[in-house]
């Protein structure tokens, strides 16, 4: 099967989980003998065309812009659509596959002029990301999401929680939706590292405990509740140090919140960390906290489990499906600093329990969250879409 995959983010252009998802899925589909063309946006020093383990990556230059984000998004869709049109002169695509609303206009247009089925993966929805619809842009994006779901032959979602959201908000028929979880590339965690040296790089000495957060610094990730939990955690584990990896528009607020805990010296905001360093940092942590208040899947939790780090996660959305409480991780109440502190203290105070959690978690990852499984199930969706 020949697939045209449209995504606004693809490594090295990484925003959140979509880039990692598209990379993992595309490589696995190639291993399944599909031909995969990823059409994405350009990025400094990344070639306009490259072959990444068999995945043909076409990066699009956007020749016209606008200060407004949504206008810019529609403009880059035009250039991506043009790229697909040029490619289709030499490549007879079987499927157009888009990820979230950001490439919907290009995908929908390509579907119609190429007369090929459109497959959509919904990673999250505006109503969840923005915790409601509060601005004209939010209403526009919500409308785009409805439109792309309507135009798609089949909609893939990454969790049962996301399926419920789609059915509840947009009344999408059950038979149109396929639930295919995300996966994780475990090989990047199967190497020897100098744990102490990695920890020292982030200001954590060997006798201290590294409490790690990885993710965008936006309200849906719940970082403020972790920060509010810091005094409680430090009271029980005075050797705890907090590393916050990631960036986002809430950063300034979170840094001032950190000051108000009176433990600012124990909290490091690292900003963006490249993937290779992030894998090492994850493997060196004593606990990975995922305090999301809205989380359609939670690929970070999977990565922590693959890295052999105990997970403390908010009992929301996809996280509640990935993490089995008291078996593969610890689930805590979201928006609840006391509960988060309880979970972190539970893990930090009992190394034997932590080891048991991580052993169970690694086994679960191996059995359920491989890219091979995801690619097989996605291929089945493609075949069904081509048949009907």
């Amino acid at each position, binding site marked *: 099967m020949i697939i045209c995959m449209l995504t606004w*983010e693809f490594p090295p*252009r990484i925003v959140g989980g979509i880039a990692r998802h598209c990379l993992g899925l595309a490589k696995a589909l190639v291993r399944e003998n599909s031909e995969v063309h990823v059409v994405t946006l350009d*990025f*400094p*020093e990344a070639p306009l065309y490259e072959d990444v383990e068999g995945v043909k990556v076409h990066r699009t230059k956007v020749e016209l812009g606008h200060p*407004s984000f949504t206008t810019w998004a529609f403009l880059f869709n035009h250039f991506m659509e043009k790229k697909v049109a040029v490619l289709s002169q030499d490549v007879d695509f079987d499927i157009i596959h888009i990820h979230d609303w950001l490439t919907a206009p290009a995908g929908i247009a390509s579907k119609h002029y190429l007369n090929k089925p459109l497959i959509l993966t919904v990673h999250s929805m505006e109503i969840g990301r923005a915790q409601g619809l509060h601005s004209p842009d939010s209403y526009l994006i919500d409308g785009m999401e409805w439109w792309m779901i309507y135009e798609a032959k089949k909609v893939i979602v990454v969790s049962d929680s996301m399926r419920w959201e789609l059915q509840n908000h947009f009344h999408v028929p059950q038979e149109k939706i396929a639930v295919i979880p995300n996966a994780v590339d475990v090989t990047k965690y199967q190497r020897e590292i100098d744990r102490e040296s990695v920890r020292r790089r982030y200001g954590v000495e060997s006798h201290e405990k590294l409490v790690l957060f990885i993710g965008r*610094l936006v309200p849906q990730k719940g970082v403020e509740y972790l920060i509010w939990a810091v005094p409680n955690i430090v009271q029980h584990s005075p050797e705890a140090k907090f590393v916050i990896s990631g960036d*986002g*528009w809430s950063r300034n607020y979170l840094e001032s919140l950190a000051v108000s805990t009176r433990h600012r010296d124990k909290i490091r905001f690292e900003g963006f960390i490249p993937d290779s360093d992030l894998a090492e940092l994850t493997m060196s942590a004593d606990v990975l906290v995922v305090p999301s208040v809205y989380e359609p899947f939670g690929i970070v939790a999977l990565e922590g489990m693959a890295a052999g780090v105990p997970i403390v996660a908010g009992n929301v959305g996809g996280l509640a499906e990935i993490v089995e409480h008291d078996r593969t991780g610890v689930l805590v109440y979201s928006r609840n600093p006391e509960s988060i502190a309880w979970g972190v203290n539970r893990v930090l105070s009992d190394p034997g329990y932590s080891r048991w959690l991580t052993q169970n978690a690694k086994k679960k990852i191996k059995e359920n969250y491989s890219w091979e499984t995801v690619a097989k199930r996605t291929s089945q969706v493609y075949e069904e879409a081509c048949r009907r």
Partner: protein
Amino acid sequence: MPDEIYFLCMLHNIGATSPDKSLTLEEITRWTAMEHEKARSNIQKLIETNYVQVNSSRGVERYHVTADGIRKVLSMYS
């Protein structure tokens, strides 16, 4: 969101993301409808944080968003 980061997002969205697409201050103020001095002040802050790079050619300064700046912008969009 700090003023200069909002300004960075606009710079990114209007396409000033590589040396060959860099813009003069005047072009930037036209695109963003921002006052000259405010734009200059924002650009200076962004240069100091390595989110914007300045190129000089024939006495004319042009500005574009760096790779770090692009990552910062992308992190603003949830």
